[in-house]
């Protein structure tokens, strides 16, 4: 992918990202790191024991991953994979069968020594409209990715 040169402004909406959580997806996420034993994420009995819930939940780190994906798509991998951050608070459990939607809005652009820092507010909602997570993200967009008038 070529270098995308564009400007960023306060109020810019991030294209939303929608994910449907399944137990299979959760198992793959956990299994990718070799976590194959029963846990609150993969086993209903373990979830009941540890969390007191009737079913499994998805790790908050899956939501973190999805927020990173949304911002990577917005800023481009060339930028976000090297300067991106996400800080997410988990407000409600996300469970298998949930459809969660990530949204974001640019809240500020400030000059840094090596580019422009673009700050974003993030929100995650499930299919019922309940907020499951909120947070912030940012990326420092290097000067080489900014139009000349923004330098």
């Amino acid at each position, binding site marked *: 992918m070529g270098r995308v040169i564009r400007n960023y402004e306060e109020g810019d909406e991030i294209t939303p990202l929608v994910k449907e959580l399944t137990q299979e997806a959760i198992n793959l996420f956990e299994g990718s790191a070799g976590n194959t034993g029963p846990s609150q994420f993969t086993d209903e009995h373990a979830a009941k024991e540890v969390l007191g819930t009737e079913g499994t939940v998805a790790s908050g780190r*899956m939501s973190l991953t999805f927020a990173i994906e949304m911002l990577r798509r917005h800023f481009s991998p060339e930028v976000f994979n090297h300067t991106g951050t996400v800080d997410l608070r988990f407000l409600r459990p996300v469970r298998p069968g949930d459809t969660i939607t990530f949204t974001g809005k640019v809240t500020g652009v400030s000059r840094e020594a090596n580019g422009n820092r673009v700050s974003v507010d993030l929100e995650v909602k499930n299919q019922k409209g309940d907020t499951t997570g909120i947070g912030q993200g940012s990326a420092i967009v290097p000067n080489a990715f900014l139009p000349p008038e923004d330098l």
Partner: protein
Amino acid sequence: MAEVDDRIELDWDALEVGETFDKFEYLLTQEMIDTYRKGVMDPEASFPTIAHKVDVRQYNDKYTDAGSVNARCAFHCYNPPVAGKRLIVTAWIADKYLRRGKNYIVTEAVSVDEDGRLIDRVITHELKQPSEVGKKWGG
């Protein structure tokens, strides 16, 4: 023969902020990356390290407790890791706090690869009373 669990039972009051754990190393394989990408339904997902939960791995190797639930997590991307490289993780206790009578521990970890390339940084706030999830959100 059954393995002996020689982990220390967590004493939250005694836990020292700044405690740094032994370095943890692992080989990141292409299979791990592929499985991670399937799980997160994103063929370009670049940080499979997230699933490895390396910030709490060394803590969990040393301490035993009632379990935990992730309350907040921050992630800093520096360079996507490369399959076939060993990753070296340094993790430490970054903070601990009480909120509404509940105990939290903040762990932080930085990963670099075998060539010294900085990969990522992760900071996690864990609630150490995980049964609060069931109490608050029920079944």
